[in-house]
């Protein structure tokens, strides 16, 4: 047991106590949390800084507005309903098709309008929000994911998580939905996380339920060796989020849209730690390096270059 702890320490694995005590509590001032906990505010903030996000179709803030849902949707046949204060991907409903009053979920099941409305009511009353406080429901553009991930995801939209520390991208992974995760891209719901080599944008092995996998469990395609298109653009986007939110330690979630390119999905002030398993590397050495060097990195470009220079994966691995 102590041997294991020692081994993790040698690798510089960041665990939850340390993340909270030394990073999130230290670098993320509490007053900034609402910026990222409320997805509506994140969206507005990103737009103000000229960063692309999925288009917002409408917001439902009180029960009475649910009746105008039909008007809000117009002729749209696919969209996503998500809670503004959701966490861990809970309460996200992906509608991929519609015939009048019937809606088809991404996994093919059919919802009648009443069920959709109930989902929105539950969202408003705080079922999916952090701490259970009343919430808003956002209705937004459903991302058409880039074909690069077609073979390694099961329904749903894969997204790319980049941990950004003091403006420097330090670690990254792509989260691939599986049958088990019900099309959702959250690791604890059963999605596969595959590490990404920061310097090249090439995927590494994956982690599924805390264990290393080399193939996607549903499609069987190799998880490793997929090149993420426009990787430099993604790094640039993530690094810019530091100035936008002011959070020192954040997880930026980006999706690649077939037509619109990279879109910021959300920003997380307490990003998860399994990314280390996906990258087979500990975060601490990278964080320490950034801590000692970040004063010399002035521009976004410098920070991205620093990351690419220092956080490359050994080709031997």
């Amino acid at each position, binding site marked *: *047991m102590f041997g*294991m*702890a020692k*081994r*993790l*320490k040698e*690798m510089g*694995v960041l*665990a*939850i*106590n*340390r993340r909270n*005590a*030394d990073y999130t509590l230290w670098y993320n001032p509490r007053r900034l949390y609402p910026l990222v906990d409320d997805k509506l505010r994140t969206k507005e903030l990103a737009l103000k800084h000229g960063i692309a996000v999925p288009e917002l179709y409408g917001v439902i803030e009180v029960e009475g507005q649910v009746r105008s849902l039909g008007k809000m949707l117009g002729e749209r046949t696919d969209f996503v309903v998500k809670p503004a204060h959701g966490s861990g991907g*809970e309460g996200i409903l992906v509608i991929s098709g519609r015939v009048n009053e019937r809606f088809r979920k991404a996994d093919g099941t059919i919802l009648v309008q*009443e*069920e959709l409305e*109930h989902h929105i*009511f*539950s969202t408003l*009353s*705080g*079922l999916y929000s952090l701490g*259970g406080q009343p919430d808003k429901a956002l209705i937004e553009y459903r991302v058409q994911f880039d074909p690069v991930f077609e073979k390694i995801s099961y329904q749903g939209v894969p997204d790319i998580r980049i941990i950004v520390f003091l403006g420097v991208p330090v670690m990254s992974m792509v989260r691939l939905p599986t049958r088990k995760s019900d099309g959702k891209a959250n690791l*604890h*719901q059963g999605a596969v996380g595959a590490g990404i080599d920061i310097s090249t944008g090439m995927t590494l092995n994956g*982690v599924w339920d*805390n*264990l*290393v996998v080399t193939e996607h469990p549903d499609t069987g395609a190799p998880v490793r060796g997929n090149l993420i298109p426009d990787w430099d653009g993604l790094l640039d986007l993530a690094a810019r989020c530091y100035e936008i939110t002011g959070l020192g330690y954040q997880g930026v979630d980006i999706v690649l849209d077939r037509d619109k390119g990279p879109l910021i999905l959300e920003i997380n002030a307490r990003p998860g*730690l*399994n990314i*280390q*398993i996906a990258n*087979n590397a*500990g975060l601490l050495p990278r964080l320490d390096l950034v801590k000692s060097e970040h004063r010399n990195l002035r521009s976004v470009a410098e920070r991205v270059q620093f990351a690419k220079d220092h956080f490359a994966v050994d080709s031997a691995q």
Partner: protein
Amino acid sequence: MSKIQLYVLASVVAAVGLSVFLYKVYFLGFPVTPAKEVHIWNVEARIKFVAEGKPVKVSMFIPTGTRRFAVMDETFASGGYGLVATESEGNRLATWSIREATGRQGLYYQAVVQVSRTKAPQVDKKAPKPASPGFEGPTLAAAKTFIEGVKAKSADTPSMVTGLLKGLAHPGTDENVRLLVGGKPSVEKRVKMAIRLLSYAGIPARMVRGVRIREEKADLAAKVPIIHWLEVFDGKDWTSFDPITGNSPVPDDWFPWWTGVRNMAHVEGGRSVQVIISVSPRIQEGVQAAVQHGQRSKALLVQFSLFSLPVATQAVYKVLLLIPVGTFVLIILRNVVGIKTFGTFMPVLIALSFRETGLLRGIFLFVVIVALGLGVRSYLERLKLLVVPRLAAVLIVVVGFMALLSVVSHHLGGHTGLSVALFPLVILTMTIERMSVVWEERGPEEAFVSGLGSLTTAALAFVVMKSKYLEHLVFVFPELLLVVLAITLLMGRYSGYRLMDLHRFRALAKE
């Protein structure tokens, strides 16, 4: 930086706590371990009433003490009232009076009662005159028949009294008894009738009222009922009889308060009179000696300690002070081991209710109620209800279950179910809600892991909080909580791995 600040703060807090603790142990002589047996009790009577703006006169019987119970250290909290203590017919009476009072009034009497196991020699007492029984007409005939029947079946006075009490307690089909006391007479009524019957037979008897001096199981409900029994003069001394069983003498823990048929308290110029008696084990001899010593020497630490509080409040703090200890267990389990629980402090509250139900019973009841609640919750899910009404519905159903469980188990002869009411209802409801949300969104596995984690944590916290030794320590030395606080503060910066992290990152630790 702030880490140094934290270390300084924690060591100062711990040092203060420890030095007060050591001072109390070495200079004031407080014992560190609890004594085995309790011989000293705090007895308290509170009178509450509403004054009507007129002169108020309140009289209340106060205990005299017997050869088994010594009444010491009496305190009266009078709040502006004049107080006189008098003696009449072997009873002591405290009389409070005031020119004018309005609104709610509260008067206290507090005494320390010491139980001695030695028996004093019997003294010959003057035989009292039996009062007139006052039977006439049909009751006279019934009394005569009944008492003659009892007499015929007994050898001496004690066995006759026993037979009489038994006869009164179980009227059965005896028409005479039914005529005398009715179908289901109260204990008080039976004792009164026994006195009249005995005086008819020429035997002096009287009613004694008092309370049982014993540790109540529920710490928070320190209120005790008044009990009644019978004393019969056997020519030399009074002998007591239990009116329910007829046994003589009455159990050792029956503490006589006053004799006679009058009510305990009488209030002139007030209404809605309430008398509440509470009994609690006094801190053991060693502690008491230390407290008295401290009070004599005017040690501030003692004068402003928990021992200066009313008995009922002390009982509350005995429990409250254990909560930080339970929370400390929770911190260790969550931040060092990494056990998942529903809600932050829920396990500690559950552990508190285990104190009332016992561990195994508590776990059983908790699991049953949560399981039933989950069933109902999953059905309600289908009805698509809004959150707040749905929570309220689950809560109502949980209350119903609890009542049902109590009734059923009561009829099955156990009192397991009665203690179910001690579970914090809202906590149970929230547990059910959280568990079912987790169940739906992350699967039953996750729900069970957290549920089991909560229960394990609660059980461990209970085992720690149950310890008599710890209870004694935190109550006699509440300053030790400062030490707990110091460690808790340090735990707030613990950034090492949790035991569960080793499992979580096992893929990384291999190779």
